[in-house]
């Protein structure tokens, strides 16, 4: 049986890889024994809980529509989490005593500081005008403090190095010529191509609603390239300020009419990436004030998760027994196939670090269903072929051959539905679709390869019971 030898090697290699992914040592080993299998599968909020952060949205008095501001904050935070791959995190709005809050829950995060970092800056971003710079801390120098008062500006530290910039929001003191919380559509590092320059530059694009304001600002601040460095030009530098820290300060060398701009500065790739990330992270329209940071237990309730898990295991054991009672040796094969596919699926989830939520578990339950079903289809078909008078060997070959077509169509239709769900779904729906697709592919593999291998191996046990059982029924 050459084919079976190949099957055996494939089956062992696949399950070995799955266990490798599951049991690869990771930091913070907390589970022991059987539960160690779940060590590397990040569990969702509903099952395991996670970090919980609560922020007060600092909406200023007299803002026209505060709810719109809160909605904007919600969107920005949601986008940041999605971009970081945390589609399973939840962001919700809350209200009490005339204050708006945002509650964020992040699965598989035990470190609240890390969770806060993931969320990014909670401050406001704006484009400002640099009037002066200083190498000494302005707080220690009364003349510098006076200068800030006179110029109606503010001393802000630079992101790196001991430099302070005197920044004013209102550009050239023109009334309302300021750009706070610009909406930046894209920002990315691009290799520098112009002669005499090297490294990387950053290109970014503003949303059309902010492009006009940016055009006016650049009209005010533009300086001819020749005069860069002169005293007059130094007062016309543009600063990108986030969280009251100057992220970048530089000259405007041309008017930007359409919101499409680039920042050159012979950056290293790292610097360029960082600056692009700052621009792209999206600005919050208002400041967020942290109310509390902490943890949340499983959202479904730890007790509910426990009883449901127990119920699932009880149900599975009944299925195991049912299959053995009804199908004998082929029932045992079905049970082995079922266990095999479950570990295979868990291995893939661990390897891809997919977050497992309850809908994901629904996908696993479905997978168990298709694996059992596949084995039932094969077993029934073999029975039929035996009844038609074929030898055991021929019946197995014909049974698997014909079942292949059945399973192929049944599984592929399910996968098409799964792909559609994956494409249109978000968050947990996506999670469900992922486990569904992986699980159905796995069940197809298990039914065709593993079940065939085992059926061939135990074919001597099939003949008599199957034929006799048929005879008894007729």
């Amino acid at each position, binding site marked *: 049986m050459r084919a079976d030898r190949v099957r055996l090697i494939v089956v062992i290699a696949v399950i070995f890889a799955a266990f490798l992914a599951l049991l690869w040592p990771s930091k913070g080993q907390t589970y022991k024994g059987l539960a160690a299998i779940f060590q590397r599968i990040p569990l969702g909020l509903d099952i395991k809980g996670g970090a919980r952060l609560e922020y007060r949205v600092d909406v200023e008095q007299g803002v026209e529509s505060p709810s719109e501001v809160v909605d904007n904050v919600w969107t920005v935070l949601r986008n940041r989490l999605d971009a970081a791959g945390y589609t399973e995190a939840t962001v919700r709005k809350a209200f009490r005593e005339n204050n708006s809050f945002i509650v964020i829950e992040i699965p598989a995060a035990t470190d609240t500081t890390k969770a806060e970092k993931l969320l990014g800056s909670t401050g406001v971003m704006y484009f400002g005008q640099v009037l002066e710079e200083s190498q000494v801390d302005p707080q220690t120098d009364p003349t510098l403090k006076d200068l800030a008062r006179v110029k109606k500006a503010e001393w802000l530290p630079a992101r790196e190095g001991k430099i302070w910039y005197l920044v004013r929001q209102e550009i050239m003191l023109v009334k309302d010529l300021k750009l706070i919380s610009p909406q930046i559509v894209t920002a990315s590092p691009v290799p520098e191509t112009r002669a005499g320059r090297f490294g990387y530059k950053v290109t970014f694009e503003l949303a059309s609603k902010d492009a006009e304001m940016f055009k006016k600002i650049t009209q005010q601040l533009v300086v001819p390239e020749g005069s860069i460095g002169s005293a007059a030009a130094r007062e016309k530098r543009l600063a990108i300020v986030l969280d009251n820290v100057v992220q970048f300060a530089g000259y405007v060398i041309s008017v930007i009419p359409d919101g499409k701009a680039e920042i050159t500065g012979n950056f290293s790739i790292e610097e360029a990436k960082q600056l692009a990330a700052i621009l792209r992270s999206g600005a919050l329209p208002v400041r967020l004030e942290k109310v509390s940071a902490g943890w949340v237990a499983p959202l479904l309730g730890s007790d509910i998760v426990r009883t449901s898990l127990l119920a699932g295991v009880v149900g599975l054991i009944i299925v195991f027994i049912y299959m053995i009672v009804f199908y004998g040796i082929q029932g045992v094969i079905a049970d082995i196939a079922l266990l095999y596919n479950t570990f295979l699926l868990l291995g893939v989830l661990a390897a891809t670090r997919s977050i497992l939520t309850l*809908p994901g578990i629904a996908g696993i339950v479905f997978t168990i269903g298709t694996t059992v079903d596949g084995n039932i289809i094969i077993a029934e078909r073999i029975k039929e072929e035996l009844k038609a008078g074929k030898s055991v060997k021929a019946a197995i070959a014909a049974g698997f051959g014909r079942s292949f077509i059945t399973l192929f169509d049944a599984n592929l239709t399910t996968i098409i539905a799964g792909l559609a769900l994956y494409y249109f779904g978000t968050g947990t729906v996506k999670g469900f679709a992922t486990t569904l697709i992986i699980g159905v592919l796995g069940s197809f593999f298990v039914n065709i390869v593993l079940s065939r291998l085992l059926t061939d191996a135990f074919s001597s046990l099939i003949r008599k019971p199957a034929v006799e059982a048929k005879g008894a029924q007729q």
Partner: protein
Amino acid sequence: MMHMDFVGKRMIFITISLILVAASVISIFTKGFNFGVEFLGGSEIILRVESSTFVEADVRRIFNEISSDFSSARVTRVRSVGDPEGVTKFSVTVTKTFDVTEKDALQSAVEKKLSDSKVKGQVVSFNETGGSAAEEIRRLTWRAILITLIAILVYITLRFNFVFGIGATLALVHDVVITLGFFSFFSYELNVPAVAALLTLIGYSLNNTIVVYDRIRENMKKYKGKEIAATVNNSINQVFTRTINTSLTTFIVVFVLLLFAGNAIKPFAFGMTVGSVVGTYSSIYIASPMVIRWVKIR
């Protein structure tokens, strides 16, 4: 071997299905759904208890005793950085919103219940909260559903033929509508796990239908010229043991879950239980007979 007549009385079953679908649609549009808090939002009550042995079940019991509004409340433990030892905080979320007097009444009722159970504790905050998963279903629009159905239709048309495609998609719609109808009629909460059950049903319904169709396709080739109704009936009979065994094994798992699983998972188990029955029924009595009618017309 038993030989049952599945297709002979197909008109009766099609009528039953039409009635069920109509009843479901009526219930959905008049009674509507009991949406979960993750979709609708509502109120979040943060309860602080000075006890480390107080658990979710105790909180759930207290709130249930106060009002039946809390029967589907989510209760979960929360902890903030810097909370002292021996203090447990719970977040209780319900779809209901409360006005000021109701809040006060609830607050004192909860605190009284707590002191009855000899634990110190109070309601520390009372939030109105938005849904966290509203976005999840927002993108599952009619367009998305339509495209999904068309993709399935195209695949089945390629592998079988157009008539089978129509049969399978109609059976799928039939199953989902009736299951939704059950959710509406029995006021089961439609929450994220319930949506997962509905999604699972899609796979289950298709899988069941395709297995029967596959046999019909095989027999149509094998016994060319034989009357289509007889072929379909034979095919259903041939795969009947498989249908029953597969459905029973699925049913066992989800039914045990329905019996024993806690509140928040009940809607999931309910959807799966209803779905496994409806999905099996439709593959035998709806999807297959539909093919007969259409093949005849052609």
